[in-house]
């Protein structure tokens, strides 16, 4: 392996890009965390929904030249509808069932969506070449799409928090995730909250996909790794702990960046995985604590 002198600037550079990636992880993980919080369902189709968001942006850009960041206005509502329909048709039947059912169900949905995408759009790697180049800040280069995606991810995460804390729907969602039965007794239509929550979660995944497409290749199976990463983020932050998911996302981005600096980028997923196993071993409730 080539030995490279590691300088302070390099570390700073890695920390910055790691945090930028982490903001995106946090956004995607928030969607997964919301669904899990309300329904106790780990949505393994989350990555497939992210992929649909990425393709939405890709096609709008390739066919109409639409600005990828503006295409969020299409991908988020579209994925909201897809999520709500999935919930209405399938997922609601397994909300009360043992975990095995919901895991297998969403796994099946995920395989189905990914392979239909492959049939429709082939498994070619595609990219949205919209913004290239970097902003130079002192000695650090910050890639333009990454920075803008990070800002967009922060904005969307902020909006989601506002929705959760400042609106009646948000309050109902939080109440349902705290205690389903009591929420129902208090007059909350939990079935309806489930549909809205799944839609919101899917919308956040779609937003993540749109943003990811400006940086990385778009292909039908791109989503799987994000399910894993999102879950890692949740495990770091503690299940059901929404602010925890945010910091967990930043932490994951940081760890991956540092791993690629000190070891090799090829193994950054391996490092993330070992990180997960160690966290589960030492702090099963998550680094920042949370409900289990």
């Amino acid at each position, binding site marked *: 392996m080539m030995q490279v002198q590691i300088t302070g600037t390099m570390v700073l550079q890695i920390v910055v890009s790691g945090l930028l990636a982490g903001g995106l992880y946090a956004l995607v993980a928030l969607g997964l965390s919301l669904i899990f919080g309300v329904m106790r369902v780990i949505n393994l189709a989350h990555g497939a929904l992210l992929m649909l968001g990425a393709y939405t942006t890709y096609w709008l850009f390739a066919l109409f030249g639409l600005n990828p960041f503006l295409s969020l206005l299409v991908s988020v509502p579209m994925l909201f509808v897809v999520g709500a329909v999935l919930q209405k048709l399938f997922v609601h039947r*397994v909300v009360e069932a043992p*975990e095995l059912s919901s895991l297998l169900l969403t796994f099946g949905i995920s*395989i189905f969506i990914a392979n239909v995408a492959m049939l429709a759009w082939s498994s070619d790697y595609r990219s949205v070449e919209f913004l290239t180049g970097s902003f130079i800040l002192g000695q650090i280069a910050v890639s333009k799409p990454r920075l803008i995606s990070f800002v967009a991810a922060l904005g969307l995460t902020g909006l989601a928090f506002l929705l959760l804390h400042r609106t009646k729907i948000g309050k109902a969602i939080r109440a349902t995730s705290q205690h389903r039965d009591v929420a129902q007794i208090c007059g909350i239509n939990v079935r309806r909250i489930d549909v809205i929550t799944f839609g919101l979660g899917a919308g956040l995944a779609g937003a993540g996909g749109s943003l990811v497409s400006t940086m990385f290749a778009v292909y039908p199976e791109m989503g799987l*790794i994000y399910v894993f990463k999102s*879950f*890692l983020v949740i495990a770091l932050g503690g299940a059901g702990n929404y602010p925890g998911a945010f910091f967990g996302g930043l932490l994951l981005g940081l760890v991956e960046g540092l791993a690629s600096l000190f070891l090799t980028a090829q*193994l950054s997923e391996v490092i993330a*995985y070992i990180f*997960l196993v160690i966290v589960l071993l030492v702090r099963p409730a998550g680094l920042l604590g949370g409900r289990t």
Partner: protein
Amino acid sequence: MMAGILWLLLAVMGGLAVLPLFASGYIISFTIQIFMWIALAGSWNLISGFTGYVSFGHVAFFGVGAYTGALLVTQAGWHWLPASLAGCVPAAALALLIGYPCLRLKGPYFAIAMLGLNEVVRALVSYFESFTGGGSGISLPPILSIAPVYYAMGGAAVAVTLLTYRIITSRFGLRLLSIREDEIAAETMGINTSLMKLYAFLLSALFPGIVGGLYAWYSSYIEPLGVFPLLTTITMIIMCLFGGKGTVLGPVLGAVLLSVFQELVWARFLFVHQAIFGALIVAVVLLMPRGIMGVLQERYRLPRTV
């Protein structure tokens, strides 16, 4: 009824034992594949069918078994049979490594950890190129006779099925089923659930390791993408679910039926076939959660140990 089933099974096994004497090479290879899927689906059943903890990365055990077998044959000059059997050692070690931290926790931790495991092991195998040949894989000597592999793979299928029967008729099996039905209640009854889950997981990892070694020998060539495909895990899962999870003959039935369907209809359309698998998982979970065996057990009042 039980006696009838037993006689039927014995007759089928007798027929299969003499099959290589007269059948064509194609039929023999196809039967080897069915044996492989019986062993794999049956192994998945041991952890996921019995305890309800879903393993989404079982192909990782198959893959490390394949690499162990291939390396022992090519580097250490072992005979293929002990080399394949040795595949269960790293598989069990890997299961212990992942199972110990993840199975102590309730909830989806185990499922997600297994989902990531396969990618991780594949990345590691590709990375340590000098040892594993990286992306270019390992070539094994061509096999001269297919019959020994046939019997070895058949032996693995029978062994997994017998093991499942042994478990389902034991107190250990009851403990596992009680974990699946209500883990907290099982704990209250004094069952050491973490330990039981870990045992089941170790048992479920052994045979995929062995079968992986046999597969490496049988196919004469392995490479990371070939022995760690997500599709293999998906196939194990759907075969076990379709046949009936938590039963002895369910995985056997699922493996035979779906292998035949696959061979006749879907093999020509790879992506369609994966999409169909996805849809089939959804359909089975929603419409027939207990699988074919579950339906048969209910309708014909078969004992649960079938």
